[in-house]
């Protein structure tokens, strides 16, 4: 094992990702395997990737009895390996909680983790010059009928794909005043003129005016889901849910109705700022906004998130992109669905310098500041001259931002965020709906006629399931099943009755009128909040 590691550290510098210090794919899957040997952890598989890799799930639970479950998902978009590492770190932190705290959580809840939904991407990227999104399917990204004919090209042989600038009168970019090697758009309002055109490092092999637009990379699973699926766009696949990874996770959610809440470490963010209610969109046939009562839940969870992750600084806004997992998990699968990048560039002095830095995009500036403040090696590279076949008479340089660092810091930077997110996860699980059943009240009305009254209270801080789930046929609803003996009959009420979601702190009263003596058994509840069987004797 040791020798293997040595061999690998020797290899990594040649590949260019030594500064990230992320594990090789084999070491990552080994780590997942190792975690599953802890007490309270079971490993299972939710399916296989397009490339035939196993997609594991780690189940932190006391027993195989189903309990309301929080599902953590990461590694959907291949450009976000930090999400996977953080999900695994959170898993470790949870396992290492003091035994009594962990036991208390697991007494009536479970936490499951799918750390790497898109294993093909990690496997390919960690041994490659760039971090691409998709799985192992070969796709025609620019839809010109040719597969991967215009791959990225590491022109200066430094092991990574960075930016490429070409000195040109038609250029719109200039060097940033404060940050070396960082290019920003010239500020026309300030009378600046551009010096460079900016491209991704590469060659326009197919002469279509785009550089490296059709290389390895497959279908981006986070663009392949059904909600607002973007047809005919790069990396979205041939049709919604065309990929085995997409189907595996949706099937998994439907097959495990006890999953109440989903937390995704990914490239969007609905935690730093809560979901907003758009009443018009919420009322349309194709629902386009979280429903009113779910928005209230989002506000609460967002508040919780802000409290537990305050030390990480303000997170950048990230719009939900079309066909992404997290929106689909809410709108089409009926789960409370939250997403955060888990880590973002933040340095202490960022707010002060923001105002003075001219025309750069805010997120980019924060990134440049973070790189400078922490002296992050390999994230923004100095420009080096190259000879470029597409620009024979122009000055072409390679350098600038190495894309992967924007969302993925060196591994050591993930420890503090993982701790904060562990706190968040613990608080989120504790907030999930919990049903409390009062002892049923039986009233003898005489002549063998009995009234049974049952009161159920949701003592959690979240509803049993989102309001949207009441509209989705295949989501298991809140129900009561009252089983009579053959000698008994209902005078009022039914054997089976379904109810809508039960809000936090809300209670539900159910009553039956039964004729006939004997035992009656009542099952009440729902998988996302727990079910209970109650026996009464009439």
């Amino acid at each position, binding site marked *: 094992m040791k020798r293997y590691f040595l061999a690998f550290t020797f290899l990594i510098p040649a590949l260019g990702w030594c500064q990230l210090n992320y594990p090789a794919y084999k070491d990552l899957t080994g780590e997942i395997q190792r975690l599953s040997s802890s007490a309270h952890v079971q490993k299972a598989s939710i399916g296989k990737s397009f490339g035939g890799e196993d997609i594991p799930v780690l189940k932190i639970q006391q027993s195989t009895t189903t309990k309301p479950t929080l599902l953590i998902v990461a590694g959907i978009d291949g450009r976000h390996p930090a999400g996977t590492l953080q999900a695994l770190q959170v898993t470790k932190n949870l396992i290492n909680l003091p035994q009594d705290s962990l036991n208390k959580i697991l007494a009536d809840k479970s936490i499951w983790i799918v750390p790497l939904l898109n294993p093909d991407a990690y496997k390919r990227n960690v041994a490659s010059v760039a971090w691409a999104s998709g799985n192992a399917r070969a796709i*025609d990204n*620019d*839809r*010109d*009928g*040719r597969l991967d004919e215009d791959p990225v090209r590491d022109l200066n042989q430094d092991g990574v794909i960075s930016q490429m600038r070409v000195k040109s009168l038609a250029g719109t970019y200039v060097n940033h005043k404060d940050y070396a090697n960082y290019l920003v758009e010239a500020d026309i309002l300030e009378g600046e003129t551009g010096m460079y055109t900016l491209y991704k490092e590469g060659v326009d*092999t*197919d*002469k*279509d005016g785009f550089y490296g637009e059709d290389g390895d990379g497959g279908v981006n699973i986070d663009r392949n*889901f*059904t909600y607002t*699926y973007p*047809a*005919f766009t790069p990396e979205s696949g*041939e*049709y*919604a*849910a*065309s990929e085995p990874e*997409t*189907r595996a996770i*949706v*099937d998994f959610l*439907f097959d495990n*109705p006890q999953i109440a809440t989903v937390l995704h470490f990914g490239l969007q963010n609905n935690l730093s700022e809560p979901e907003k209610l758009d009443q018009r969109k919420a009322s349309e*046939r*194709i*629902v386009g906004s979280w429903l009113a009562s779910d928005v209230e839940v989002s506000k609460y969870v967002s508040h919780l998130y802000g409290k537990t992750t305050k030390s990480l600084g303000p997170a950048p806004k990230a719009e939900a992109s079309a066909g992404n997992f997290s929106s689909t998990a809410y*709108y*089409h*699968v009926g789960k409370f669905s939250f997403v955060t990048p888990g880590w973002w560039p933040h340095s202490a002095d960022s707010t002060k310098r923001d105002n003075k830095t001219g025309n750069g995009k805010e997120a980019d500036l924060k990134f440049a500041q973070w790189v400078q403040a922490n002296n992050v090696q390999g994230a923004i590279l100095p420009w080096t001259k190259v000879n470029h076949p597409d620009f024979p008479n122009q000055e072409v340089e390679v350098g600038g931002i190495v894309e992967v660092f924007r969302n993925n810091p060196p591994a050591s930077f993930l420890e503090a965020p993982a701790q904060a997110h562990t706190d968040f996860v613990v608080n989120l699980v504790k907030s999930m709906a919990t049903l409390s059943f009062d002892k049923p009240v039986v009233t003898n009305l005489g002549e063998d006629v009995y009234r049974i009254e049952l009161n159920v209270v949701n003592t959690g801080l979240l509803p049993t399931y989102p309001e949207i789930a009441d*509209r*989705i*046929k*295949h*989501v*298991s*609803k809140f*129900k009561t*099943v009252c089983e009579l003996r053959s000698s008994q009959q209902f005078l009022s009420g*039914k*054997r*089976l*009755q*379904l109810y809508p979601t039960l809000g936090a702190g809300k209670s539900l009263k159910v009553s039956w009128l039964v004729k006939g003596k004997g035992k009656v058994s009542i099952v009440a509840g729902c*998988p996302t909040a727990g079910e209970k069987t109650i026996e009464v004797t009439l």
Partner: protein
Amino acid sequence: MKFKYSILTALLALSLSGFAQKSEDKAVEIPGLRAIGSPSNPKVPMNWNRYHDNKQMEQFYKDLQKAYPNLVKYESIGKSYEGRDIFVLTVSDFSKGDVGRKPGMWIDGNIHANELQGSEIAMYTAWYLAENFNSVEFIRELLRDKVFYIAPTINPDSRDYFIYEPNTMHSSRTGRRPFDNDGDGLVAEDLYDDLDGDGHIVMMRRKSKTGRYKVDPDNPNRMVLAKPGEVGEYEMLGFEGIDNDGDGLVNEDITGTYDPNRDWGWNWQPNYVQNGALYYPGTLLETQAVKDFFYTHRNIAGAQSYHNYGGMILRGPGAAQDEQYYSRKDVQVYDAIGKVGEKMLPGYDYIVIHKDLYTVFGGEIDFISLTRGIFTFSNELMTTYKLFNEKAQGGLRQSDEYFEFDKLLLFGDAYVPWKEYDHPQFGKIEIGGAKKNYTRNHPGFLLLEDAHRNAAFTIYHAHHMPKLEFLHTEVKPLGGGLYEVNATVWNSRIIPTHSDHDVKNRVNRPNHIRLEGAQVITGMRVMDSDFNVTVEQQYKPEQIEIPTIDGMSSVKVRWIVKGDPSNAKIVVDSEKGGVVEKSLKSS
């Protein structure tokens, strides 16, 4: 005289049978016995006045393949939920050209399993093509140029379930995969019940002062609405069944109330938007198998998906918001074929799904036409027009024509007369009504005629898939060892190689016109040869990329080559338009 003739007939029969022995694919046809358009002596005798189960269908595929090995091949493209094969018949002249590169016509049926006749009509089409290959020149040419992929049922599980188990004319629209339809955590716990055990699931009615129905005095099988102010006699209680799970609802959790035709990957929506949808498009194995077939057969250029009922030739889109993907140009192509269809299919109207029927999200038609860019129709088979060859009075569901037709032409075979029954929840009720194979599925004697008319329409559709031909090629010396090669290629049919939608969204790769065996200096598309307007192609100029070759239109390409190209050839290579090539020797 008599004697002479009989010898002649005997000789003729002898010579014909000898001929038949020599050529296996040829059936004996005696002109005087042949009813025009139909083989008098088919190698695979079939009765097209009846329906078939999966076993009988597979036997038909086997027989047809055995009789016409050079024209018919059948294969399984995947398995259903219950493990049945989904079969596709490939019909083409296997001795001519590369079958996988001929423009392909997809035909499927029975996605809604209660809609039986789509299968028979699809099977009839394969049978008709094979049995008439030797008698009809048009069919011979058609199978030389084109290939048919015919999937008589893409829902085999439910087909047999519909045929053999308790069902109504509307039930078993679905497949056999069980789901929890009512969200109670249980699966398929409240099915139909054949209460009186007569093998038919029909209606339940109960005598009631407040009921709004009464018996039609002219036809005791028929229930009609009481007039406003008039006291009714009966309330209708739905189809035969009991409340099996005690939730106060009858038959509310039958197996699969999902709809396999809401399981496709274009504008898919969940079930609260589009009833019948499942988890995501392609939740069902059957859907996945058909989708995969489309991606491995990129030559499919036309498609027909049979449904019932109502007499419609439908085109997309299924939802109003997708109108944007139907340009005027594409609609003109649909119109050209659809309007001919109205003539070929009396009583059928050529209409648009979302405008004239209802909105469908995630339907198969939209997947084929928009995700794959294929010109697709979906015929809703059977119409009341066929009963008395006139448009129904008072709309589809109000008319009494079905009852009258049953009385006059079927002599009461179509209805179960009302009889009393003691129901555990409803008390004294009566059970009766139309049998499941009536109203939506054709009565036997109408089936053959409609099979032929619909088959003919798909043949017309298939005929108008693109056919690419060289109009003109020339080689012009430019001096100094340089030559100019010009080629004009045209599409002699209505359907373009790429729809407008396809071109805009780059659904399929462009057509390639390739010069092979010459040293190409540069290549270009000639937009206007009179004024020398050209567009140079820098990348791989030996293979000019052409976004589409429209129906009845031509494109021109030009290369400048070094050295005499007379040994070179030009290849036109189109995914949906096929492959043709021409040597430059003759130019």
